[in-house]
């Protein structure tokens, strides 16, 4: 296998604590991999193992087809962008970007040309003589990316690069990173806890949970076909609706009994056959629900708990037997709290999960 990044059966322990368990990932050249998960799930540790900053693990890591498991960071042909940017405060932007090239004893003219090229791509031309302390957060971030880009590495590593930026800038830099990815056709491994970043940037998402891979797939796969309840809950805003139910067979489909209410669920909500009386978690994305009575769909009545206007849409939370049910209504909708509304259910994208293991049924 050539190029890209291969992680094979990597396990990492700190003393008695195993933080990563049997991780295997295969990333093709030019692909954008996002390592997603909550804090403490091991995603940053995995990135540090790839970079070589953290050592002593089981399994092997290949970058660009070369086994780098026992190599120093400098011999892995990688570049890394840190959460804190890790710029050298006493050097100018130019010197920061040129640092790696100087270390590699490139000629002055070449360095100047290379830094100029990167500065053009990142629109840093006007700031080259400034010190990092004189730059805004977004500019510092661009310098950090520039420092990574300039060496033309086999693999880029990003460790939560946007988490120190404000929401607006984060959106802009996200677009920027995507643009750079396409422009350089770079292979990227990117750590984040932000599912929006993961969804928008990734070709492939690895969702980590407690040091193990919860699910590996494209953003669409993770969103549309979550393997576990954790994956279903982690991705999507507002969060997926989950209701504990009992399943019974009913003709071509299933019936999900939730308290006094019975809802018809299509068979494809489960991946296998389900026995009568099975306890399950019914999961429906907020977009499967809408306010009002829909022709040919199931409707139920619930009281409104609150409305969160987002501008282009409104998140509505309703009370379903004491459980919150979230949906999105287009535009600015005002529903009085406590008022009863009819909700239409579309179970096309519904999932059934095991209540204890969280696995897709």
């Amino acid at each position, binding site marked *: 296998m050539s190029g890209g990044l291969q992680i094979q059966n990597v396990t990492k322990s700190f003393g008695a604590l195993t933080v990563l368990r049997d991780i295997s990932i295969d990333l093709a050249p030019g692909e954008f991999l996002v390592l997603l998960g909550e804090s403490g799930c091991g995603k940053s540790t995995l990135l540090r193992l790839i*970079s*070589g*900053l953290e050592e002593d693990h089981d399994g092997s890591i290949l970058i660009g087809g070369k086994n780098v498991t026992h190599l*120093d*960071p*400098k011999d892995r042909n*990688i*570049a*890394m962008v*840190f959460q*804190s940017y*890790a*710029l*050298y*405060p*006493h*050097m100018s932007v130019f010197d920061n970007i040129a*640092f*790696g090239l100087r*270390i*590699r004893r490139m000629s002055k003219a070449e360095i100047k040309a290379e830094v100029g090229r990167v500065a053009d791509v990142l629109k840093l031309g006007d700031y080259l003589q400034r010190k990092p302390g004189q730059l805004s957060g977004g500019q510092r971030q661009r310098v950090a990316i520039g*420092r990574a880009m300039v*060496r033309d590495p086999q693999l880029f590593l990003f460790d939560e690069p946007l988490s120190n930026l404000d929401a607006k800038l984060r959106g802009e830099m996200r677009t920027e990173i995507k643009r750079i990815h396409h422009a350089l056709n770079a292979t990227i491994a990117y750590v984040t806890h932000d599912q929006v970043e993961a969804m928008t940037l990734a070709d492939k998402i690895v969702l980590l949970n407690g040091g193990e891979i919860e699910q590996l797939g494209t953003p669409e796969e993770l969103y549309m076909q979550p393997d576990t309840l954790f994956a279903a809950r982690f991705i999507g805003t507002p969060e997926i609706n989950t209701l504990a139910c009992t399943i019974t067979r009913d003709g071509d489909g299933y019936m999900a009994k939730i308290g006094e209410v019975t809802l018809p669920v299509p068979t494809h909500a489960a991946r296998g056959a389900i026995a009568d009386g099975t306890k399950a978690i019914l999961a429906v994305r907020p977009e499967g629900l809408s306010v009002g009575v829909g022709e040919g769909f199931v409707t139920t009545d619930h009281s409104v708990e609150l409305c969160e206007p987002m501008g282009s849409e409104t998140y509505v939370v309703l009370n379903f037997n004491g459980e919150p049910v979230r949906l999105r209504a287009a535009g600015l909708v005002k529903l009085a709290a406590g008022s009863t509304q009819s909700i239409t259910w579309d179970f096309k994208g519904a999932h059934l999960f095991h209540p204890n293991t969280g696995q897709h049924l």
Partner: protein
Amino acid sequence: MFTATAQTQRRLVIIGFLVVPLMLLTVFSLYPFAQLVWFSLTDWDGISPEKTFVGLANYERIFFEDQELLRPLINSLYYFIGSLMQLALATYFAVILNRGLPGSNVYRMLLFMPFVLNSVAVSIIFRDFLQIEGGLDALMVMIGLGAFTREWVQDPEIVKWSLVFASVWRYLGFQLLITYGALQAVPQDQYEAARIEGASEWQQFRFITFPTIAPILGLQIILSTVGSLEVFDVPFLITGGANGTKTFIMATLQEAFEFRRVGLAAAMAVILLCFVMLVMVIQRAVFDRGGTK
């Protein structure tokens, strides 16, 4: 009942807090300083109730007539060179300790300990250590270097370096601690970024560590320059100034209390003060340039 506005109260508090330190400063620093300058213009012997104003005669004597008086300042050079070596060593140890190797706390304590020890005790230990057939000689014989033993304190060519060595040993820990503190302020991810970019240990020091701690190192050089002008305890206790190891402070004290020439000694003290201030001014100039660069 006395009431005051918030502003008056604030003023009263500020004045209240300032009175004590200002009084102490006046009594123990400013007044003695004025006295010192005044003494330096007289021929006072330190005991007699009379002192005659002699103008700048004491200064004239130091600079033009009795140049033996300034000679001990040359000894300061040895200590200055020693202090530079000491700083290099301290930085070296600090960088190693900053790696967070196992047991580094113990090493830090061991290196710092001499500074906490009483300087009289340290000097007495060193006096015995450096004696002919003393501790150092015994140690050298033990490890097979018996042929290289010297008269560490008696040989006028070596004695100054022996004293410098004792002084370095004693003050190394202090510099180490300051440098170590400065190193702790360098974020680890800068080193990690540099490692990924391929920087060697030396390059990491040269491009990241050194620029960050340079102001602190500069400050330490100034402190050691001042310190080497003012060396007293170690040579006084080990050799008592014999064998050409007299320092300027020792000479000053000798003039004042042995030869009963307080006026002359006061002039020497003022000269030393001027030297120290000159060093400070140079330091300021250098640092301000560095700061705005």
